[in-house]
């Protein structure tokens, strides 16, 4: 909740900046141990967060509007970031489905539709909840309708995890490619400054 409060504050106190693309955290947040998998039997654990920048987005495959546009915009933003930072600092994008019952068989295919380097994972409910909580994110599966279809509410922001495995920032919609890339480049400069101190 502290983070969400910070987001609101940032949005409320800087109305002049229409293009707020993210919020940097005051203090890095350690990530707990977690393990996800996908239909290719690949693993995504807290160990995979080390030694590179990672963008983690939560969503679900039956999401008609927000998820595909977020991933599409992230593809453009990451491509823009590639023009501003060293190749080994270009972030990896990981899509984590919070709806494993429907998505386990297609989550990688879904992510790679937006870019071949994107990765898609899902997993056990307790693992999802662990990462959701650690990143101060949110999701909720709604009650099924008469056809069995259910909707999922979820955080629209994207978690930015640094090469030391800690959460450093949240990206906010609309994920404008240029502004998001600028935000990520600034975040990386600040991170390197901190490391050299």
């Amino acid at each position: 909740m502290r983070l969400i409060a910070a987001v609101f504050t940032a949005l409320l106190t800087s109305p002049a900046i229409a293009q707020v693309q993210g919020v940097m955290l005051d203090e890095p947040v350690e990530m707990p141990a977690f393990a996800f998998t996908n239909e290719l039997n690949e693993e995504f654990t807290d160990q995979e967060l080390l030694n590179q920048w990672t963008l983690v987005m939560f969503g679900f495959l039956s999401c008609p509007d927000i998820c595909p546009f977020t991933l599409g915009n992230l593809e453009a933003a990451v491509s823009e970031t590639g023009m501003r930072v060293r190749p080994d600092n270009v972030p990896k994008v990981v899509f984590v489905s919070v709806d494993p019952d429907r998505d386990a068989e297609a989550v990688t295919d879904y992510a790679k539709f937006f870019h071949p380097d994107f990765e898609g994972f899902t997993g056990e409910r307790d693992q999802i909840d662990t990462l959701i909580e650690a990143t101060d994110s949110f999701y909720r599966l709604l009650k099924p309708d008469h056809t069995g279809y259910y909707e999922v509410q979820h955080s629209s922001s994207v978690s930015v995890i640094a090469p030391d495995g800690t959460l450093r920032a949240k990206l906010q919609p609309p994920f404008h490619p240029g502004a998001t890339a600028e935000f990520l480049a600034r975040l990386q400069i600040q991170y390197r400054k901190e490391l050299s101190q």
Partner: protein
Amino acid sequence: MIRAALSLMFMPATLMAGEVTVEAPVVPLAPPGAVAHAAYFTLANTGDTPRQLIGVSAEGYMMAHIHRTEVSGDVAMMSSVDALEIPPGQSVVFAHGGLHVMLMRPTAPLEKGGQVELTLEFANGEAIPVSAIVVPFKDLQAHGS
């Protein structure tokens, strides 16, 4: 279509002038595994009476609904829209992050350049057929996201 023609025939002359046009109907190419995706367009009421969109159907889908994405704080959610008023002389935009037609459970995968046949149903009984073109996401983003 027969229903639309009949309703037009029996409508009073003032309503005949109430025209709704559908601009730029598109369906972004659905990613694999998506059992729901979206159609977008702009509805313009060029007539002089208010019009009410009350439903939508789509060929090749089990269901279609008028939906609105709402982002409250950090949380994205969707709500169903039962009726949508289009005042005379005004347009209503269906676009990412707001109104969209939710297309559920396609019977066949989409292909780039293909078409999705929609029917928009209005409170006055008129049904407007719409052919939405299937486009890659990149095309939509280039048009301003």
